[in-house]
């Protein structure tokens, strides 16, 4: 393993003695039906084969970090919702975790459970819709996507009930969560979680054995294990390449050491593995949710002292296993109410590093599903 970094591959255009072809350069995005937002790929095509692909982003850049450095610590919490707008709960948690780590705040027992429940619900809805979007990229005219969206609605209803907002939840606080769960919420959540495996079974029977999905996803966009580690790929993409690295197991943040769950691993690292790992992770999330819902204790949910506080000069890097990968916050405090440095380590952004490596030599249609299988949200990539 003493190799140097794995450099980007170069694709050799075949040119025979007298058969010369022109490279077709197209700019996919920022307005393109398949780029999951305002993302652009500068693609060079040899026929239909990708010979060069450069991701271009920043169309949604609003300098989130600068905004956060000019407001109080708590003031940034709603902004974190807007990073990965599919998973605002986990964004909140990652930020709260970093601040708690820096200021040394403790979290009440019940709040820890609520955080786990919210994070796993977020993972469920994110993975379900991602698989839906991926099949949409495969051209399935939205049918699996709409099945996934139906399940997502149930989970978003739960979020709305608890936090008042469906997507921009702003629910977590330093040292706990904003408010306790409304009465009846846990029972409804239990119902949603119990119903979820039925949807999973349906989804899996419909999708995993489909001949077209098999032939289009398998051995497409292969991400080798070494490259995945070297390029700091995290989340399901990393585990699809066969690396056992799940922060819920490694860091055991929150109370994840109390739950019994497993980490599914892929072997090839292609689109199909990334797709299947997400399906399998959803099953594990359901397991965690069932355990958490069965054992959640009563008690306070937040620490009222930790509102507008002024941390001592310190720095901390807090990270959690978000649905898309490792979401980290690097905070530096200089003793004022505003952070001196506030940096987000966005998983979607870094996972895009290997987009070109995965797409070279594949067809243009494959580039679309490779991008889909990475799972990016442009709010997080551009910040």
């Amino acid at each position, binding site marked *: 393993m003493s190799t140097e970094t794995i450099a980007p591959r170069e694709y050799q255009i*075949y040119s*025979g003695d007298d058969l010369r*072809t*022109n490279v077709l350069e197209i700019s996919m995005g920022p307005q393109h039906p398949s780029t999951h937002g305002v993302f652009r790929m500068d693609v060079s095509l040899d026929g239909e084969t990708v010979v060069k692909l450069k991701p271009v982003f920043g169309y949604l850049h609003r300098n989130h970090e600068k905004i956060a450095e000019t407001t109080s610590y708590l003031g940034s919490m709603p902004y974190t919702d807007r990073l990965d707008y599919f998973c605002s709960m986990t964004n909140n948690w990652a930020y709260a975790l970093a601040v708690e780590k820096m200021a040394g705040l403790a979290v009440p027992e019940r709040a820890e459970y609520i955080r786990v429940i919210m994070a796993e619900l977020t993972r469920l809805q994110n993975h379900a819709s991602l698989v839906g979007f991926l099949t949409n990229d495969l051209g399935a005219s939205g049918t699996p996507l709409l099945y996934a969206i139906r399940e997502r609605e149930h989970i978003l209803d739960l979020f709305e009930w608890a936090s008042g907002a469906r997507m921009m939840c702003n629910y977590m606080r330093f040292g706990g969560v904003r408010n306790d769960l409304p009465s009846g919420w846990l029972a409804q959540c239990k119902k949603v979680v119990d119903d979820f495996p039925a949807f999973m079974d349906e989804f899996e029977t419909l999708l995993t054995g489909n001949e077209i999905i098999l032939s289009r996803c398998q051995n497409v966009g292969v991400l080798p294990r070494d490259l995945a580690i070297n390029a700091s790929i995290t989340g399901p993409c990393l585990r699809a390449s066969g690396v056992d690295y799940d922060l819920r197991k490694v860091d055991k943040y929150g109370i994840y050491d109390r739950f019994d769950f497993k980490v599914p691993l892929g072997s090839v690292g292609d689109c199909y593995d990334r797709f299947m790992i997400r399906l399998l992770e959803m099953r594990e999330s359901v397991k965690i949710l069932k355990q958490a819902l069965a054992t959640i204790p009563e008690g306070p949910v937040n620490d009222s002292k930790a509102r507008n506080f002024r941390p001592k000069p310190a720095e901390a890097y807090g990270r959690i296993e978000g649905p898309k990968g490792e979401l980290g916050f690097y905070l530096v405090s200089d003793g004022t109410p505003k952070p001196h440095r506030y940096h987000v380590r966005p998983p979607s952004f870094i996972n895009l590093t290997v987009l070109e490596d995965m797409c070279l030599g594949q067809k243009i249609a494959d580039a679309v599903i490779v991008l889909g299988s990475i799972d990016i949200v442009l709010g997080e990539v551009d910040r």
Partner: protein
Amino acid sequence: MIITFSILSAIAVISALLAVRLRNLVHATLTLMAFFVALAGLFILLMAEFLAAVQILVYVGAVGILILFAIMLTQQVTGNVKEHIEAHGALWGLAGATAVLLTLLLPAILKTALPLQPVVETIDPSVRALGLNLMAPYTIALQVIALLLTAALLGAVVIAISPEKSEEEKKS
């Protein structure tokens, strides 16, 4: 009949001329196809539906598309406007061409007794007759052509298999 014939032949002549004259290769091909279609129309006028259908199927559907495909692979679709072929003595050339054409056609024109007898009633261009002709007197020719085309097809396949792939296969 005469009106249809005139219209179709006018279209055919004009589109054929355009196909030669137009500098944009794609336009030229498209006009060439218009010529083929007009020709098919003329075949229908002669009650040769089968021939018309084959004309469209083969020339418009296959040959024309092939030409277009080849043009797509070339670098420049539009010809260079600045580069004109200077024609000297175009009139002389035209006169010469007309003379040659007339000489070739003269015997036919002289031999034909006018007014023409309607051709339609004397022939029965049914598909069955055509098929029987192909199968009985022209079998050998048909077989030879078929063999030739198969060989050409196989040759195309051999050329199309890229050497890049075969190298990979050698390695593995």
